[in-house]
């Protein structure tokens, strides 16, 4: 009975979403206040029913209701309760429901926190969010129903993919969806602005907080995904440029461009059309990413043959959303180049160059990701694009970004001053070269590592110079407004990230070795001693656990326990052992026993020494914190003021910004 209730809840949610979208849009067009006022209650209603449906699915998992096909496919009696909850979003149907659920979280937040914005504008924003919900709810109900029954009911289910049975994987999809789905808010604001003819010039300021928070969540999600790949997939990699990762990276790249473009548009009024276009791209890439990852239909043309309904629905949905918004943009985007002009050397130009690099990078990743599909559609053969394509081009495109980074805050709006820039370039440059020379000694001339140190110091010194400038020039309490603090934190984080990436990529040591119990292998200054393997088991797996002791200078630093687990359905999972450290990770993964009939004998294993690898995730987390901090700036909180005082406050704010 309860699965059918879940389905009913989704149907009701769909009807309410239709009301939420069509009625307010009509009302806004016709000037009908009653219709416009339908938006908030309809959104609340839709959210309530989606919550019910989601809760019922979680309940079905917790109660082992194997009569629901989705539950039977993704859990079994031995699966611990926390992974049964994670299994709700472990496969396609459930993760679509999670997407809609999170869309409702954002919608409710917008509905609740925008009481001071013009009613008609908010109604349009909620209506656009409602349209997106309609699309997803229809997709779920017609092609991907998580509540479909499986009769006769099996006595036990399948299993959640063991690769997903990990704490990291439990919260990675919700966090990353908070990011993906969050860009729908920026999208909705842009569409509402286009529909309303941009009567409200301040809409970009309203949109900024939402966009920064979404971007921060997406950053966190990507960091979590990368960390999970490193810890769970067993082979020491943290980024593979595979379609799933690219699907989350492309919206992130465009989102980074977007948050910077929004800053320009808000403060100077220029680049309005570009900002709107970027928000459309960011959300379109989020949609594309969702479908690439979960339904798999976009990775192979032939997959359409096996499930044409889903593929066709997705294509139509994308066509309507992306095509519709681009058409609206073509018709309604600001035709007059508005805002204050800017010189070739100015903050706007620097941000524009950065925007260009990020957008081209996103396009390049998109091409590489879809290239196999193109090759397939035109019968060019089964092509895959190797990671070096992405790595090479991405690095090239980010060089201008890294070079320009320290100058950003020092550049004035409109026209930058050469003298200040030269001073910065000199100081950051000297710092970078000095540290690079020092590093060169330690890393024995490895070019990538030296470049990494130089780039990181360049960014860090540039950012810290600005921190120092503000400290010296401004009185207490006014030095670091949240928006600026966020920017500085994020830019600093980039420097930290660069250290992590370039040093770990160039200085890592990986060794595949064969070790018998008692053998010792040396990697750098560390000696790894293999102390044999014994059998062990967990709630839903049995496996072999090895013991490896790490010794340096005669002292045992760590005892590591890599495992090889076998889950139900003969699925094998390597659980690597990691000894974390501030300056290095040590990593051991079990291969196979050299002789399968003698697991107590020698084993093939992989030993890693990974210097500074934690810095890359730390850098990402700094960027995430920067995003949240910037969004919290009091400037973005709209207070209901009378018209005159708002108009009076505006020039004051602009004047202050141009000095910053």
């Amino acid at each position, binding site marked *: 009975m309860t699965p059918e209730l879940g389905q009913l809840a989704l149907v009701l949610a769909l009807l309410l979403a239709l009301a939420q979208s069509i009625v307010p849009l009509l009302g806004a067009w016709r000037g009908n206040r009653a219709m416009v006022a339908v938006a908030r209650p309809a959104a609340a209603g839709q959210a309530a029913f989606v919550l019910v449906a989601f809760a019922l699915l979680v309940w079905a998992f917790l109660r082992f209701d194997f009569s629901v096909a989705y539950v039977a496919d993704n859990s079994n009696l031995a699966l611990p309760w926390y992974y049964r909850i994670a299994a709700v979003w472990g496969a396609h149907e459930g993760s679509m429901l999670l997407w809609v659920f999170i869309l409702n979280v954002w919608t409710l937040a917008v509905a609740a926190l925008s009481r001071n914005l013009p009613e008609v504008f908010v109604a349009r924003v909620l209506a656009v969010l409602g349209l997106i919900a309609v699309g997803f709810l229809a997709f779920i109900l017609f092609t991907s129903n998580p509540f479909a029954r499986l009769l006769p009911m099996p006595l036990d289910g399948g299993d959640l993919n063991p690769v997903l049975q990990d704490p990291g994987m439990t919260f990675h999809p919700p966090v990353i969806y908070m990011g993906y789905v969050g860009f729908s808010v920026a999208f909705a604001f842009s569409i509402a602005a286009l529909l309303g003819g941009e009567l409200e010039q301040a809409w970009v300021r309203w949109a900024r907080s939402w966009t920064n928070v979404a971007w921060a969540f997406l950053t966190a999600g990507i960091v979590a995904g990368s960390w999970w790949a490193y810890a769970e997939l067993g082979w020491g990699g943290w980024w593979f440029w595979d379609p799933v990762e690219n699907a989350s990276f492309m919206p992130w790249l465009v989102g980074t461009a977007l948050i910077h473009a929004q800053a320009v548009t808000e403060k100077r009024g220029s680049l309005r059309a570009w900002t709107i276009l970027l928000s459309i791209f960011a959300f379109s890439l989020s949609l594309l990413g969702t479908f690439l990852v979960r339904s798999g239909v976009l990775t192979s043309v032939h997959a359409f043959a096996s499930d044409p309904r889903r593929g066709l629905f997705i294509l139509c949905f994308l066509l309507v959303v*992306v095509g519709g918004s681009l058409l609206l943009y073509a018709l309604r985007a600001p035709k007059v180049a508005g805002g204050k002009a800017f010189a070739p050397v100015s903050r706007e130009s620097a941000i524009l160059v950065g925007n260009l690099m990020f957008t081209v990078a996103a396009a390049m990743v998109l091409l590489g990701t879809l290239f196999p599909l193109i090759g397939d*559609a*035109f019968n060019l053969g089964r092509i895959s694009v190797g990671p070096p394509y992405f790595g090479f081009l991405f690095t090239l495109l980010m060089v201008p970004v890294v070079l320009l980074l320290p100058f950003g805050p020092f550049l004035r709006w409109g026209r930058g001053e050469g003298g200040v820039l030269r001073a910065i370039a000199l100081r950051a440059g000297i710092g970078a070269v000095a540290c690079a020379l020092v590093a060169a000694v330690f890393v024995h001339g490895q070019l990538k590592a030296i470049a990494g140190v130089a780039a990181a110091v360049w960014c860090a010194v540039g950012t810290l110079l600005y921190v120092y400038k503000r400290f010296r020039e401004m009185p207490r309490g006014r030095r670091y407004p949240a928006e600026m603090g966020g920017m500085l934190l994020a830019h600093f984080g980039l420097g930290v990230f660069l250290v992590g990436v370039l040093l770990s990529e160039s200085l890592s040591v990986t060794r595949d070795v064969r070790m018998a119990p008692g053998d010792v292998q040396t990697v750098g200054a560390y000696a790894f001693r293999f102390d044999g393997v014994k059998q062990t088991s967990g709630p839903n797996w049995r496996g072999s656990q090895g013991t490896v002791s790490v010794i340096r200078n005669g002292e045992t630093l760590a005892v590591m326990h890599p495992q090889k687990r076998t889950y139900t359905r003969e699925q094998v999972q390597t659980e690597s052992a990691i000894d974390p450290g501030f300056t290095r990770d040590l990593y051991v993964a079990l291969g196979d026993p050299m002789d399968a009939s003698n697991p107590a004998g020698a084993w093939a294993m992989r030993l890693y020494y990974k210097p500074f690898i934690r810095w890359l995730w730390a850098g990402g987390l700094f960027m995430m914190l920067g995003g949240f901090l910037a969004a919290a700036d009091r400037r973005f909180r709209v207070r209901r003021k009378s018209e005159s005082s708002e108009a009076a406050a505006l020039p004051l704010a602009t004047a202050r910004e141009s000095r910053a």
Partner: protein
Amino acid sequence: MSRLLPFVAFLALCGLFGFGIWWNSHHDQTAIPSPLIDKPAPAFALPELDAPERTVTKASLLGKPYLLNVFASWCIECGVEHPLLQAEAPTLGVTLVGYNYKDQPADAKAWLARHGNPYEVLMADLSGKTAIDFGVYAAPESFLIDAQGVIRYKHIGPFTPEVIEKELKPAIAALSEKSS
């Protein structure tokens, strides 16, 4: 005018993909009609997989309708269809005849031991020559042959639940109508 550019570019891209998908679905090689429908099945005499000294001939199978399923241990799609066949075979009402195609008997036996053996009759065509008469060019393929030895239905590729419900079962039902 530049405002229109993103929209036009997007439409062009979609058009390209759409064309690719359409082209592919219309040039799907597996959708070839068989000239053998409603024609007598070719005569054959093949050794049994488990007992090569015994022979299964077309004549020996006359009198009852049967579903001839071409499979092999090296064929991945056969593994996909196999559990479905095993589940559905008892309900179909026709004999399930296994046709091991261009396989090593040891491999085939091991594969059946691992995946289950739903076949009431099991024969082996090591060279694939007889399969040519049937027009087989890939595994898995299945032929529904009636009690008089006439091919009434052919399916290329693995069975899916949909194909069994919408095509195979009606074809089997049509057999009994013809004979009654």
